[in-house]
């Protein structure tokens, strides 16, 4: 590593050290949670932050994030109107509200959470030995895309993590809506959203992560970590909707474990942010599982959106399916790096991966790297990647039917990403996301015409 980089990392470590000291909880020093965070911090100290020399971070530099000495954000009031703005029409949810990383129980509404389910702050949950052991075990797995310093950073500095337990055979009908607000503050602030989700045998649950910024929120850095453990036959639908402002950064790590017959669906929609990096990893621990990754990214201006996915097929008879689509304009940069590993024992695996991007302007850049690593012979695996522009003959067709050109392009773009959106299992989510996408595409199109 060059000396310049080393100096930068040293200064990053200095401000991280300050934050770590000031965030110590008021619990006694030997409290399990404090111990847990100390261990994570040690791990963080031993790791280097990724640079573009690391193969997995080749296209995205995090220097811009690391040089900013972020502070913890404060719990500031959120108005009723602002809260109402988060309502997804036609969808009743169990609501958890976080402001600048701080949980605000007064704005949250958890009345409809089934009584058998447990929802606790991680700090409190750690007092139970069984839960503590489970959380320890989850956080110890750093396979796939999880090998980066941001995960231990989340564990060491996060102070409002949520532990969620869905017991055997329980179906949570209402989606659990995690709303993360970034609000205006004096200086750049960061937050470390944390969700530990334990779905027991044959349970079903939907979580929606909703990252948004209020007007004037300034530069924020969200370093999120989500751990999902699916026991046999469990089903988890995981939505992640990201609409931060154009000055904000987000690094998002999701680590999933799947036991036999379980289904994990991930839906990722990225609309906002300056630098966005998603690391999504699933380890298939037993046979006959199903994993679906759906992703949409729309970037304009100087936005950078980097999706890294990893699926570890360790067991036979599993299925995985990935579909990521995005539209880039202005000087935006998109990255897709999908890796599928099929180990020797994972016979009869079906693994599919598709990434398509539309590049609207000449300043935009798309880098794709769909990888297959296969050690088993009786498998069906394929991947595809396309990068291109709108098919002019389709535009012509629509125009010949009397649709003006801007609308024709908009329609085609909407249809392009619509293919992904329509895989969502909640109808109101499809409509909601569709509308958000239309709004953003409209903005893109009008910029291009002006």
């Amino acid at each position, binding site marked *: 590593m060059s000396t310049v980089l080393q100096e930068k990392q040293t200064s990053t470590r200095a401000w991280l050290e300050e934050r770590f000291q000031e965030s110590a909880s008021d619990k006694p020093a030997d409290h399990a949670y404090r111990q847990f965070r100390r261990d994570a911090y040690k791990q963080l100290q031993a790791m280097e932050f990724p640079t573009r020399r690391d193969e997995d971070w080749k296209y995205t530099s995090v220097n811009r994030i690391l040089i900013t000495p972020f502070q913890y954000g404060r719990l500031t009031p959120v108005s009723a109107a602002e809260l109402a703005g988060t309502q997804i029409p036609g969808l009743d949810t169990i609501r958890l509200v976080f402001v600048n990383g701080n949980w605000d129980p007064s704005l949250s509404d958890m009345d409809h959470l089934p009584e058998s389910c447990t929802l606790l702050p991680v700090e409190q949950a750690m007092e139970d030995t069984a839960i503590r052991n489970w959380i320890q075990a989850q956080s110890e797995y750093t396979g796939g895309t999880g090998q980066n310093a941001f995960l231990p950073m989340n564990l060491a500095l996060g102070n409002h993590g949520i532990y969620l337990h869905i017991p055997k055979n329980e179906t949570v009908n209402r989606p659990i809506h995690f709303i993360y607000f970034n609000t205006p503050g004096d200086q750049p602030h960061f937050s470390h959203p944390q969700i530990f989700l334990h779905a027991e045998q044959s349970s079903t649950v939907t979580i929606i992560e909703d990252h948004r910024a209020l007007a004037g929120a300034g530069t924020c850095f969200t370093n999120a970590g989500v751990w999902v453990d699916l026991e046999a036959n469990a089903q988890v639908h995981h939505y992640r909707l990201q609409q931060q402002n154009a000055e904000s950064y987000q690094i998002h790590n999701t680590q999933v474990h799947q036991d036999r017959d379980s289904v994990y669906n991930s839906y990722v929609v990225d609309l906002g942010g300056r630098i966005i990096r998603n690391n999504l990893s699933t380890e298939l621990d037993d046979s006959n599982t199903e994993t679906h990754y759906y992703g949409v990214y729309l970037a304009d201006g100087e936005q950078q959106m980097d999706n890294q996915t990893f699926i570890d097929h360790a067991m036979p008879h599993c299925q995985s399916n990935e579909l990521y689509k995005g539209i880039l304009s202005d000087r935006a940069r998109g990255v897709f790096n999908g890796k599928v590993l099929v180990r020797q024992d994972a016979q009869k695996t079906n693994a599919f991966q598709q990434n398509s991007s539309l590049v609207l302007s000449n300043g*935009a850049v798309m880098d794709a790297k769909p990888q297959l690593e*296969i050690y088993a012979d009786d498998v069906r695996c394929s991947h595809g990647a396309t*990068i291109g522009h709108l098919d002019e003959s389709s535009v012509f067709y629509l125009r010949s039917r009397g649709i003006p050109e801007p609308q024709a392009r908009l329609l085609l773009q909407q249809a392009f990403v619509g293919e992904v959106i329509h895989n969502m299992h909640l109808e109101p989510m499809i409509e909601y996301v569709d509308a958000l996408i239309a709004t953003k595409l409209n903005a893109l199109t009008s910029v291009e015409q002006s």
Partner: protein
Amino acid sequence: MSDSMQTLEQHTQSDYKYGFTSEIDTETLPKGLNEEVVRQISAKKNEPAFLTEWRLEAFRKWQQMTEPHWPKVTYPAIDYQDIIYYAAPKKKPVLNSLDEADPELVRTFERLGIPLEEQKILAGVAVDAVLDSVSVKTTYKEKLAELGIIFSSFSEAVHDHPELIKKYLGSVVSNQDNYFAALNAAVFSDGSFVFVPKGVRCPMELSTYFRINTANTGQFERTLIVAEEGSYVSYLEGCTAPMRDENQLHAAVVELIALDNAEIKYSTVQNWYPGDKEGKGGIYNFVTKRGLCAGVRSKISWTQVETGSSITWKYPSCILRGDNSIGEFYSVAVTNNYQQADTGTKMIHIGKNTRSTIISKGISAGRSNNSYRGLVKVGRNADNAHNFSQCDSLLMGDRCGAHTFPYLEIENNSARVEHEATTSKIGEDQLFYLQQRGLSEEDAINMIVNGYCKEVFNELPMEFAVEAQKLLAISLEGSVG
């Protein structure tokens, strides 16, 4: 283990059929590498000063570089001081006919199945046979000379056409391009040089056979092909090497330059010693191959059939600089036993309306690992660039691996880039169908594999296509998936 697996095992037990050492006296420099060795190589070849300087510059640069380890291959560390960097047949024969050649050498070629006289008469192929490092025999040279085509060994070209060498050497792969290219530039012993003048269509396939003959000799060949405006040339390179226990390093460099409207077709059949069934021995094949489509509407086409070497690490690439230029890459890579291959291509689109096609077929058997690694880059000004890539992998057996690492870097919105990859095995139903038609399991496998590779074999010149099919059958002997 199923029956089919057993047949596979039997088949893969077959020994390397081209393993023998011909006993010709060779003059060698002592092991090791330093500036003095570089100077000596240059002196032995009576090279002009500019080339000596060029070598030394490369050597100094090489000393500052570190060996790259990013490919998905593993091998014990190479001791660069334990290699003989120069070996030449002692009696440099000046031959007018084949009778004057060392009879041992002629026999060697006969055992390889390339009798020079036969080829001269039957195939109409001019063979520039390179045994170890010095060119021994160049045929058809006069015929080509009539057309103005220069086809000679590299050292001859240095003496006869220094101005061309000076102009083009290192213009595509510089003497400090990468670790192995720098090493090659410092110590390259010989190679081939082809120059096709303006408007000339080379009437025959030019071909060279490389053989690694002296034990512990790294073979550092350098090929330079220049096709002037509107010319066409098809170049064949085929390789077989004798059995060795110690790994031999091969770090060749191939540079192609196509000017306006020129076309170069470069075909390779590589069957170097892959090591024995335990993965012992075998050739390290670390090659830098790159073509520059310098002019408008120029075209460079790489076709390769890679069956040998214990480690193959090469990425024949095209830099599409001229507007409307075309780059193609067709590859069949077969790995068996403990072989490792990390191969693919780079297509760098710089000019407008450039097109590239990548067809890569990987076959892995035994305990081998076969990776496709490729880059498609479309620069900011490369309007209307179009790329199509297809990478298929075939797995024969459950101890082998097939990997794909495609990189797509697109900076222009008018580009159209498509990449697809599949991984599969030979279906039981396909086998069953062929067997119930009366084919043996072996023949059935061969037929399926040949069908799988057809797309690439079709790109090979006729003589090579036959050889390639034969090689494929030998490489996968007994492999039933």
